[in-house]
């Protein structure tokens, strides 16, 4: 019987010829990523090694990545102390994939793993962050775990008791209309299959739309797969994967893992991209998705561009094209968070930041804080935010009395000018 991508990766990482859904395995981990919550991982790691008579030892310091991004620079003494504790741990253990709060190496963890070429097809990647699914865009099996589970990975180099998941195949054919983007596609999919439609399952993305999509868009699809409950969202590796990784400095072999023709899927979903229009996820669940034409007369107090979902250079370019020579509406504020400092500097060099500042938008430093309501950009009681981020849960942007809508960068930019949620249709 044929195998899906995740089945092949899990078979390879456990030295087996074949595996099937439900098998319980202990795969080897290629990259184990954490951010500021490494503070809790360190605590649990110390607990694991207590009373063993052994000195605590990470299994492979070159496979652990730690990136500061959730609260940068620190918003409180507590965070600064956590970051200090992590920095010391990194030094003591010789962890090499460490990205501090610096403009020559920093950014949002999922963007850093991508742009530094840390992830390759076939890898098993775990992260103490639910959006670790992002790295499925490279044809890896990448999923989020908790801090104690990460302490276990740091100790053993394997992830214990992984049950081989079933796979849902999503096939997207056709062609996007102008002003329709990967974000609209993934919102549409989440709305269609629901926030729990892929719980405990892996999504594999196929079809001509995916094959023609640049890596920046693929990262959006894999990133938000978790919002449908998926353990991972995997895109088969191809020329685009290799192109991106070569540019990111990967010089050794890159071998895509592809599914067998007779692979067994638990469900197949077919989507025609020709019919897709811009989508909006309305409060307070990510699957409360509507075509933008159904969302009328919603005044927006805050526009947010950024996050591990839509803060990449391609996203900023779309926004700048729409904002050029225009102003952000009077009663609306706009915050732009490039996803990394590499992106920030490219946007600076190519004049995008000038367009943003001329329009009245605020250029923020790369980081996650606003998306999850922990650092800058909180919304007030009764306020509405329209955001290119990934979650609109009650309280997400720092206030349970506010509303968060999710959209593509194009919808966000057009709406910033109008001050109301607006369709980008007709905008060139």
């Amino acid at each position: 019987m044929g195998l899906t991508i995740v089945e092949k990766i899990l078979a390879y990482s456990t030295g087996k010829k074949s595996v099937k859904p439900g098998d319980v395995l202990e795969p080897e981990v290629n990259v184990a990523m954490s951010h500021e919550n490494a503070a809790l991982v360190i605590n649990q790691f110390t607990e694991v090694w207590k009373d063993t008579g052994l000195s605590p030892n990470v299994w492979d310091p070159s496979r652990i990545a730690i990136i500061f991004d959730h609260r940068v620079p620190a918003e409180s003494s507590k965070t600064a102390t956590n970051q200090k504790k992590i920095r010391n741990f990194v030094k003591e253990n010789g962890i090499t994939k460490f990205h501090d709060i610096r403009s020559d190496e920093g950014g949002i963890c999922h963007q850093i793993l991508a742009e530094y070429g840390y992830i390759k097809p076939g890898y098993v990647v775990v992260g103490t962050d639910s959006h670790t699914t992002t790295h499925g865009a490279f044809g890896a099996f990448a999923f989020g775990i908790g801090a104690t589970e990460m302490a276990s990975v740091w100790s053993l180099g394997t992830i214990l008791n992984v049950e081989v998941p079933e796979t849902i195949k999503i096939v997207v054919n056709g062609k996007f209309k102008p002003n329709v983007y990967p974000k609209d596609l993934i919102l549409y999919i989440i709305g269609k299959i629901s926030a729990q439609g892929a719980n405990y399952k892996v999504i594999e993305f196929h079809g001509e739309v995916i094959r023609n999509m640049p890596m920046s868009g693929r990262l959006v699809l894999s990133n938000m797969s978790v919002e449908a409950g998926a353990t991972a969202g995997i895109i088969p590796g191809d020329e685009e994967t290799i192109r991106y990784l070569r540019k990111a400095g990967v010089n050794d072999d890159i071998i895509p893992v592809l599914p067998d023709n007779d692979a067994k899927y638990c469900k197949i979903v077919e989507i025609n991209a020709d019919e897709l229009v811009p989508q909006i996820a309305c409060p307070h669940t990510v699957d409360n998705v509507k075509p933008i034409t159904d969302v009328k007369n919603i005044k927006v107090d805050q526009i947010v561009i950024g996050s591990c979902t839509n803060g990449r250079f391609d996203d900023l370019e779309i926004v700048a094209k729409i904002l050029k020579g225009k102003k952000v509406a009077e009663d609306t504020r706009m915050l732009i968070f490039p996803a990394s400092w590499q992106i920030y500097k490219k946007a600076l060099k190519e004049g995008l930041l000038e367009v943003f500042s001329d329009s009245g938008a605020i250029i923020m430093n790369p980081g996650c804080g606003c998306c999850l309501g922990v650092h800058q950009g909180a919304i007030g009681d009764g306020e509405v935010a329209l955001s290119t981020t990934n979650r609109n849960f009650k309280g997400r942007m720092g206030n349970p009395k506010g509303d968060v809508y999710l959209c593509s960068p194009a919808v966000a930019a057009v709406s910033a000018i109008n001050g109301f949620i607006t369709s980008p249709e007709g905008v060139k």
Partner: protein
Amino acid sequence: MGKVIYIFDNDISTDAIYPGRHMATVLPSETPQFCFADYTDLNKKLNAKEYPTGSVIIGGNNFGCGSSREQAASTILGHGLVVIAKDFARIFLQNAINLGLNLITCPEIEADLDDEIEIKGDKVLNKTKGKEFSTIPLPAARLAIVEAGGLVAYTRKKVIEKYT
């Protein structure tokens, strides 16, 4: 074993259980104070220790969806609550198992506030309603972690096997 103290809707996220703004607080000994912080009445009563250990909260579908923050499990564990839901999101369920928080998957559960609930083997008994509901047991692989007393103890055993 305990009374139902709160009934939640579907899709309760870990942001609702443990809001992001408290995430700099990480230690299991310190997280309980922020349990359901945006449900101000519930949070106040939990912190005033008005609910005895074993009190029950009821969830709908997809309880614990969203962020992987482990604080969402440790914060509920700190109050000794039992969560019975129609089903749970993956990372939250795994975190709960790893830390020893008692989650019970009970797709047909019917319960109102103050109902008296008892767990009898693989059944949930609503004593107030006089009704019994089936539960979905944990897969054997996960049960091994529960039986070891949590993932720290389970991993410690593996570490000793591997490195000595």
